[in-house]
């Protein structure tokens, strides 16, 4: 079915809320999902694949970093999906860089599922003059205020390469000065910024095509945030009246 970006945001926000994501985390995750889907990247499929884990009691619990040097820290996600903490991790990375004398912050995240969800959060925080590298498996994304370069292993369609679920080891590095990152040996150019922009424009023009079954799964979970209707709520909850009066 064709859906709008608004609908993707809303269903993801509600599904995450329905799974127990706190206010703020649900919105981060939904914004990331719609950012990806609108650009032809597999946000919904990754989210759907993580629904069971996101239903675990500790899926949205806090994370305690281990400092591993000046400007460097490690997190163990313990199998948690990135959608549960994309903004928190990237904000922490920026803090590491701000505190580091050389302006460089590094964050290593172990056992993290669906790291593609870090990409939208990373794009959102990179300011003019800074740069951020996000890497996992055979993927490296270099983000600057004026552009995005993604590299993937050769021979794979890029939605598949970027949509690897893991768990995976993820490395994030933030540079307060935009040192051009060197290409990663062995990786080939992935989707270009122009391709992602084209996909975004197409999604605005035509809507986003989503899998019906996946949408239904998300809808079922999203419905958990609604309060069942009752006669009392109908009358007291929103007022009423005779439209013929």
């Amino acid at each position, binding site marked *: *079915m*064709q*859906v*709008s*970006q*608004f*609908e993707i945001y809303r269903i993801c926000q509600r599904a995450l809320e329905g799974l127990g994501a*706190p*206010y*703020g*985390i649900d*919105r*981060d995750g939904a914004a990331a999902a719609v950012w990806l889907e609108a650009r032809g990247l597999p946000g919904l499929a990754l989210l759907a694949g993580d629904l069971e884990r996101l239903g675990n009691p500790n899926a*949205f*619990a*806090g*994370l*305690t*970093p281990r400092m591993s040097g000046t400007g460097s820290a490690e*997190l163990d996600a313990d199998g948690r999906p990135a959608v549960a*903490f994309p*903004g*928190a*991790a990237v*904000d*922490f990375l*920026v*803090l590491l860089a*701000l*505190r580091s004398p050389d302006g460089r912050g590094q964050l290593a995240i172990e056992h993290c599922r669906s790291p593609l969800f870090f990409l939208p959060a990373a794009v*959102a925080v990179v300011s003019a003059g800074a740069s951020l590298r996000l890497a996992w498996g055979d993927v490296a994304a270099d983000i600057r205020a004026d552009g995005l370069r993604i590299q993937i292993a050769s021979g794979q369609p890029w939605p598949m390469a970027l949509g690897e679920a893991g768990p995976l080891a993820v490395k994030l590095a933030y540079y307060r000065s935009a040192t051009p990152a060197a290409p990663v040996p062995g990786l080939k150019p992935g989707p270009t910024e122009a391709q992602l922009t084209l996909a975004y*424009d197409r999604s*605005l*023009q*035509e*809507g986003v095509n989503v899998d019906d079954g996946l949408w239904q799964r998300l809808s079922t979970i999203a*419905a958990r*945030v*609604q*309060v*069942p*209707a*009752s006669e*009392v*709520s*109908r009358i*007291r*909850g*929103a*007022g*009423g*009246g005779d*439209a*013929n*009066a």
Partner: protein
Amino acid sequence: MTKRTQDGAASPGPTAEPAAVQALMRPPDVVMRFARLGAFHATRLSFGRSLIRRMGRENWRFTRRLVEFDDRGFGRMVHEIETPKGRLSFVGFSNYLADEDRTDRVIAEKWDAAFALSAGRLGEAALARLAEAAPRQEAGRYAADELVLSRANKSVRLFETVAAALAAGRQPDLAEVVRVGYLMRTTAVYGNGKFGLGDLARLWRDGIFSLPYEAEMLSVYLIREFSFALIEHIARRRNPAGAVPLSVKTKRALGIGNATGLGMAPFLIGHPKLFNNWIAARELALARVRAVPEPMPGKAKRFGQLLDRAIGHVSQWTTDDERQAARITVLAEELAALRDRLQRVPSLLERPRPWDALIAWAETELSPEAVELLASLVIELHPELVDDLAYSTGSDEKERIDPAMSLAELKALIERAYDWALPPDYDNPKERHFFWYRSAEKDEPRLGERFGEPGAELELPLGIGFMAASLHRALTRLPQTALVASVAEFLLENPQWRGILRRIQSLAHLPYSEIRDNTLSDRCLPIDLLRCKLSIFGAAKFDPKSDRWTRITFFQGAPTLEELGEPDADDWGFPYFPP
């Protein structure tokens, strides 16, 4: 002046204003209160007003491309709209509706008429698809080319009366027309991607619309035109030889009704940057006029004319709601007394800063209804000072974390910018009386009583004061040594605070972004928030049906399509229709 944001929207920038203007901005502790927001009136910056100006200025062309109604008035009608940035189409479908199926509630499933605004020209295939989907409204699916979806019911009080009069060859009784104010009443106007409609970003990208709710207000305006065409058709079919069309005078007296429930209140809380810009534009407009240093030729006379018209307007504002009726009575008395005073002492408006003196006097002597009406009138006096502010009402709505802020700084920020949130005793059940939630019934936003209704565990995060105070309390409980930690460290370990903390950091510098009252308390009257938002849209004749929903009128007094662009087309605020 205004400053542009990244996405091209602009935000009012009081810091760029002269100090004399900045000093006259009313503080948020005065403006952002339930009672004050609930006394707002439309201004010339309201969305309906700015749309009418824009359509006239840019010479938008409207063509009735297709009119197909049967003898009973059921069928379809298509308008095409040529704008400098592209073409739009507006289709309306008129269908049979039994009286027992007619309800103002969102949970209704059938309506007298359904409408869609689309980009480009509507082909037969799209029309056929919309004919099937639009009458089902929320149950239908729409394409990205479709921008706005709406529906309306005929006014049972007026529609048949007017049709009968026209069919009999005469205009309807003007007093009755003015009293009801519309032939059709909308109950929802959807945009921004709902049910598959085009996303807001699509609207901005196409460039036809550039202001919030501009597409929705255009749809409402065209529903008014649809209602004119429909009733004239019905009258003609009843009496082909003798029926008369609506006179311009009658058309002017007819707007479009609207019934609005609780959904508008959560919107204001959920879109705080947008809300800030709406209020800031209004307050900045008022401050600019208040800062006019000397009386200007003709302005006192013009104010007198506007005041006279407003007095007439208020005399034609009726409601069965006791609270609002009492307020209207006081308002009428206060405006009449002001007119008498100005006639006795015309020099009151011939001193330095005349409009500042008037508003300052009103703030101490008059009811909030009267103060806010006078604010709207003085804003009307100086289009050249204020009209650019209509373009500052958009916002990107992005909120950002400042990761390096220390918890001590955050705590101080709450005490400075959210001081209004801290005093209530939230352990007192009265301060947490209500909870906002989404009903499973058509997703309707509702307000429950926390200690007497189920569902509070699914509460929407709309108790901003309570959440800010809770974060402050959590910070206060930390040892002093822990307050050196940064926000990013805190949020990594305490994700439950992410939403409210980001909100506080993002909004602290936006004075009009937060309602500075407790939206959970038993003192919260949602009708005040509805009134605020509707006034910004351009609504008038507020007719509350409870403290949770209201009827209003849009575009009563507005020029018709044929009158757009005429020299006085913009002069329709607070319309009065002499008998």
